[in-house]
């Protein structure tokens, strides 16, 4: 059997809980509304736009361990045929030099370091690396003169542009944080945007006589 004290305690507790309930509900509702307003007006984060320089080809860009000399761009269109759908790709030509004086090591260009910037807030398109001397994934030797290369971006068949923009990312020669047990020797990692290169593409129609 409950004592009278227990019953009174329970009653007081109930009162205390209920006394400010409306105020709390109003406060929580206010926070939710505020959050919705911030979301609706475009988020908390300040939009900065482009923070890297925009350059116009022909131009030489040094980014990370690579030096690029962008020359020209081509939109190659493959019209629809009986057995194949219409396709297009964007080819960007450049001279590539290995500038890795940290490690003096030959390496092939990572396709993630060159990206097509389609604009209008669309996702960037990664390239397929550097094809030099007719070989995809060519290993560029440190210490040799620049070699002329081409990279390819997949674009929709109806892709047209007066000016294509290629984002150039460069890796940084850094080490990982050692206190978690990682090796502290630095290596090329963490690509960051370094420049955007604008190139005027020419349109080439590939009728597929010889491939």
């Amino acid at each position: 059997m409950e004592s009278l004290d227990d019953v009174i305690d329970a009653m007081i507790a109930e009162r205390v809980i209920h006394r400010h309930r409306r105020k709390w509900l109003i406060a929580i509702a206010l926070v939710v509304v505020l959050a919705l307003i911030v979301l609706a007006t475009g988020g908390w984060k300040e939009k900065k736009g482009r923070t890297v320089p925009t350059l116009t080809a022909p131009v030489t860009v040094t980014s990370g361990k690579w030096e690029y000399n962008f020359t020209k761009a081509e939109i190659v269109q493959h019209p629809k045929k009986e057995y194949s759908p219409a396709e297009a790709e964007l080819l960007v030509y450049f001279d590539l030099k290995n500038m890795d004086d940290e490690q003096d090591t030959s390496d092939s260009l990572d396709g993630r370091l060159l990206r097509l910037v389609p604009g209008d807030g669309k996702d960037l398109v990664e390239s397929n690396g550097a094809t030099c001397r007719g070989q995809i994934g060519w290993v560029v030797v440190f210490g040799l003169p620049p070699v002329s290369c081409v990279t390819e971006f997949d674009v929709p068949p109806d892709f047209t542009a007066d000016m294509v923009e290629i984002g150039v990312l460069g890796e940084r020669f850094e080490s990982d944080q050692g206190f978690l047990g990682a090796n502290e020797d630095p290596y090329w990692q963490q690509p960051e945007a370094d420049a955007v290169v604008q190139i005027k593409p020419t349109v080439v129609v590939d009728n597929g006589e010889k491939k």
Partner: protein
Amino acid sequence: MKLYRPATVLVGVLFILLGGLTRLATPDHVYEKQNMEVVHGTIGEKLPYGDSSVTITRMKFAKTVLESGAGEDDEPIETDGVFVALEWDAVRGVTEPLSANPTLRADGGTIYRPLGVTESGLDFPDPGFAQIGAVVFEVNPSDLKGLTLRLDPAPLYNVLYVAIDVDLGIPSEDVAQRLVDGAAAQYVFGNREVRVA
């Protein structure tokens, strides 16, 4: 009962001193990779790699490279430097060897990676067999002195692994220059022939 008798403490101190002494005795080994053994050799020498073995049979300098399956229309691959082709003979043991990454190192500090074509590489056949093939490097003619082929196993940190260092016999700049001057016009990849070991 007394937990730490003087003798116990003495033994502990002795162990600490011993640990310090071993560090003092081999200071080079403290920061070195203890789980790596490097086998040194030269061209023509059969070098053990686990229970498999690798022999570098021939070194050739060339100005262009052609793949073995190339047709009439295929252009040879050119270079502003020079190509070094190393032909190997790999005999496979019973256990699967760690895949070997070949690199060339020169005294000037340059590290060369193999040419990125399918046929240029080094791998082992099935147990009981041996295979020949070639790995080709594009190199800078001005940094060839002391050229060494290094076969590094894929990094696994919990096993004792063996790396191979093959001295390619280029002791001076003059020798390097001679080899570059005498480079063949073309190197054609041979077929990867497999035979019973």
